[in-house]
């Protein structure tokens, strides 16, 4: 029995040398001790095995981790080494702690010479000073920084750099350092600067083009004025029958040419963004009556009915740009009549809605004309385009009208809509938001006045008018009309002469060309107003000008000019205008 005991127990029993009797007595105890010793050995052996196995595993795992760390850092350094841009790490004091090889390519400094040194030793401004304030390292209240600047490199040259930096935070929220990138943006900067320059050049070229167009159109209008005026005069002088046809053609062609020049001027103004909309009280009735009087005869000649319908709730006055509205309507109605051989052209104005300060109106211009094919509907709104190339030959027109209408409506926050069927007709429509006006309608008075005066050429008989005009042809034209209307007139060939004549004589009205040698129309008008003659303070002074821009209109008041009469003028219109001016003068 004892021989099977654990050797430690056997050794202990041998040493203590007990009697057999006692041994028998304590046999159960010895048995337990033996079991415990053996179990203990077994456990120990087990623990040793576990320790050994675990050590092996930990060693292997550690090895694997090391390998993967090596392979990852190898990959990373390969990536960092092949990137064109600089990648860096920086410690809390702003010293480089890592720079990839791109740093040397960018700056020329060796990476090992830079590590541990502050960044600003290597980033210098145009004066060679350190970029010390690039990062506020003392109180870094940022997460990321991104800056572009010019920096000197080792050769003394400059590079444009895009410098970005990010804070590295530790798990407990403290700043451990910084990581970032530097990108050479010199090429981009160069391109950017070149683009800016090119853009400036282009815009200057555009401006020159616009100016050229404006000037040229303006220059064309002055002689055109003479051509139109003279053709009117010739027609009034009882021409022979065979001359009549030639003269009519001359008149129509010159009017068409004027229309084309006006369209080009307008289009150019819109395209260059120079067009300013007027905000004035106006009578819609007056606009519509004007429309009717312009097209009444044309429609009658073609045996087409021209109908203008108005919503009964339509107010008489609004605030807006009546000139432009009139231009749009004239264009659309002119087109409608032009392309309609039989049937009718209808203008319909409806109130769509009333808001606190605005009316929303819909204008519809419908005709029973040739119509526009589906595939041409978009094309007709393009400049210098008509549905068919032979349309121009057959119907005339500049091809600018619809483009201008569309652009004008776009400026007014509206849109020109078209519905059309070939052989049935076309319908153009647009909606306009027009401000409410508190003004009373004055249109009826004007109408009665017009009706009375238009056929009575005695209205201007004996009126004293001073005309300041330097252009010989224009002088000739205006002389002819004024003589015909039996006006007592004087011609001044420049502003200074006009001023002197105004000082010496008493006139009922002064017509003042604006661009004249010696003294221009503005200065002359101002001088006349400032002169001692008390009559000159109230005398109507009207500018005669081919320039119609808002800027000129706005300037007139400053120089004491009462209004503007556009050149080239329609003789009938001129007569009406002069009559009305004089009439108002007498009323006052």
């Amino acid at each position, binding site marked *: 029995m004892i021989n099977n005991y654990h050797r430690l127990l056997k050794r202990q029993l041998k040493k203590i040398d007990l009697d057999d009797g006692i041994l028998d007595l304590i046999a159960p105890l010895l048995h337990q001790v033996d079991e415990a010793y053996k179990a203990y050995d077994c456990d120990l052996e087990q623990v040793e095995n576990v320790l050994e196995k675990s050590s092996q595993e*930990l060693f292997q795992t550690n090895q694997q981790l090391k390998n993967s760390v090596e392979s990852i850092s190898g990959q990373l350094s390969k990536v960092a080494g092949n990137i064109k841009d600089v990648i860096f790490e920086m410690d809390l004091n702003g010293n480089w702690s890592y720079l990839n090889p791109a740093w040397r390519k960018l700056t020329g400094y060796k990476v090992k010479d830079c590590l541990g040194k502050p960044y600003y030793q290597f980033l210098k401004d145009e004066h060679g000073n350190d970029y010390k304030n690039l990062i506020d390292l003392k109180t870094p209240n940022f997460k990321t920084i991104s800056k572009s600047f010019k920096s000197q490199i080792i050769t003394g040259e400059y590079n444009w750099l895009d410098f970005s930096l990010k804070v590295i935070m530790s798990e407990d929220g403290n700043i451990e350092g910084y990581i970032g990138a530097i990108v050479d943006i010199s090429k981009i900067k160069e391109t950017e600067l070149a683009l800016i320059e090119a853009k400036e050049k282009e815009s200057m070229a555009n401006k020159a083009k616009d100016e050229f167009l404006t000037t040229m159109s303006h220059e064309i209008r002055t002689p055109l004025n003479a051509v139109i005026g003279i053709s009117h005069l010739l027609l009034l002088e009882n021409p022979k029958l065979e001359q009549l046809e030639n003269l009519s053609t001359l008149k129509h062609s010159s009017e068409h040419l004027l229309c084309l020049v006006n369209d080009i001027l307008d289009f150019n103004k819109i395209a260059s963004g120079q067009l300013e909309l007027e905000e004035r009280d106006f009578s819609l009735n007056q606009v519509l009556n004007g429309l009717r009087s312009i097209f009444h005869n044309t429609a009658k000649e073609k045996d087409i009915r021209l109908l203008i319908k108005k919503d009964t709730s339509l107010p008489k006055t609004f605030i807006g740009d009546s000139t432009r509205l009139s231009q749009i309507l004239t264009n659309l109605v002119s087109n409608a009549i032009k392309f309609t051989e039989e049937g009718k052209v209808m203008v319909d104005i409806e109130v769509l809605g009333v808001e606190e300060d605005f009316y929303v109106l819909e204008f519809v211009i419908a005709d029973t004309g040739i119509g526009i094919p589906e595939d041409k509907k978009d094309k007709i709104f393009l400049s210098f385009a008509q549905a068919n190339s032979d349309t121009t030959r057959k119907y005339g027109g500049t091809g600018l009208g619809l483009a201008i209408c569309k652009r004008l409506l776009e400026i007014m926050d509206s849109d020109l809509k078209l519905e059309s069927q070939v052989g049935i007709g076309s319908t153009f429509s647009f909606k306009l938001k027009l401000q409410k006006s508190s003004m009373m309608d004055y249109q009826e008075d004007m109408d009665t006045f017009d009706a009375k005066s238009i056929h009575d050429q005695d209205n201007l008989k004996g009126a004293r008018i001073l005309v300041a005009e330097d252009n010989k042809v224009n002088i000739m034209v205006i002389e002819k009309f004024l003589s015909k209307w039996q006006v007592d007139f004087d011609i001044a060939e420049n502003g200074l002469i006009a001023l002197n004549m105004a000082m010496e004589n008493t006139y009922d009205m002064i017509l003042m060309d604006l661009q004249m040698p010696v003294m221009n129309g503005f200065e002359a008008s101002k001088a006349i107003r400032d002169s001692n003659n008390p009559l000159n303070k109230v005398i109507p002074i009207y500018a005669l000008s081919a320039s119609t821009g808002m800027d000129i209109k706005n300037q007139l008041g400053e120089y004491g000019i009462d209004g503007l009469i556009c050149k080239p003028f329609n003789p009938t219109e001129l007569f009406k205008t002069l009559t009305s001016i004089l009439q108002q003068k007498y009323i006052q």
Partner: protein
Amino acid sequence: MKIYQHKILHLEDLDHLDLDFVPDVFFLFASPTFIGTEEFVSKLARKFENTNLIGCSTAGEILGNEVLDSTIALTAVKFEKTKLRIEEVDLISCSLDSFEAGKAISAKLKGPDLRHIFVLSDGLIVNGAELVKGLHADLDKSVSITGGLAGDCSNFENTFVISGNKVASKKIVALGLYGPELSIGFASKGGWDSFGIERLVTKSTNNVLYELDGQPALELYKSFLGDMAKDLPGSGLLFPLSMRDEDNQIPVVRTILSVDEKNGSLTFAGNIPQGSYVRLMKANIDRIIGGAEQSAITAKNSTDDQHQLAFLISCVGRRLVMKQLVEEEVEAVNEVFGNDIYTTGFYSYGEIAPFDKFSPCTLHNQTMTITTFSE
């Protein structure tokens, strides 16, 4: 609550029961090596016709401060106000589906004033984790569940449960306790340490583990057992795994039930889901005893009432580690509770309880799980 305890060493001890009350229930924790268990049970049932019997086979019986072998630890209890009901489910009739078996038991015991379920199950063919899931699947969260899986020394051959007047394998028996007067305490603590690297479960099905980190699990496991590998699955009790997955934020311990040499797999007493992480565990006797003490403290503090009866269900693996010192953990528990408490229980193949009163009920291994009743 009236309690009577007796250590049954022989069949004849039945005649010496000195009961001065008629108990509601006998708790019987029986050693597989006790001779005549079936006879004892049927005689006891006949003698106390109106008393319920519930119990199971053990890997060691606990009675008072003693850890016993080859006995039946008998505890007779008469509750003053708490009502009881015992129900059983045959695992074969549930096609061995432990989840369904758990659900079936809960359904049978469900009632408006059900407070607690004390469950004892066959320890070998049941999947304890599934059983627990099934038990509280349709149950109100206020009903607590504790219990354990039957043991058979450490042979892993045949376990049984006692229900009514019968002793049977492949069954689950459960005691439902009803009424507001019952106060229940419980806790479960281990005291084992995990060691070595964390391993990913790369292949498993329910409670069968095939691969760890892509390596055959059995091979790896055996290498750590060394010489003791030849004593598997019994020696596996010394080497449980600590497992954490998404369901278990606190790692749970999983003990081996069996091994399959053919396909190199290990079968555990609870599920080892694929994608979970496991670490090997080792025991330290002092810390195991400390764990039992901690478990007692938690159970004691889980209710303010004076604890009257405590069931200690401890893992067979702990017993194998502690060997001659096994009673130390029972004594440690009893020291926490003091003298006025009756203690019984057994060494099991799996413990069922929440970690504490704030956790859901789960299956444990290698723990000391304590349930206390008072009213």
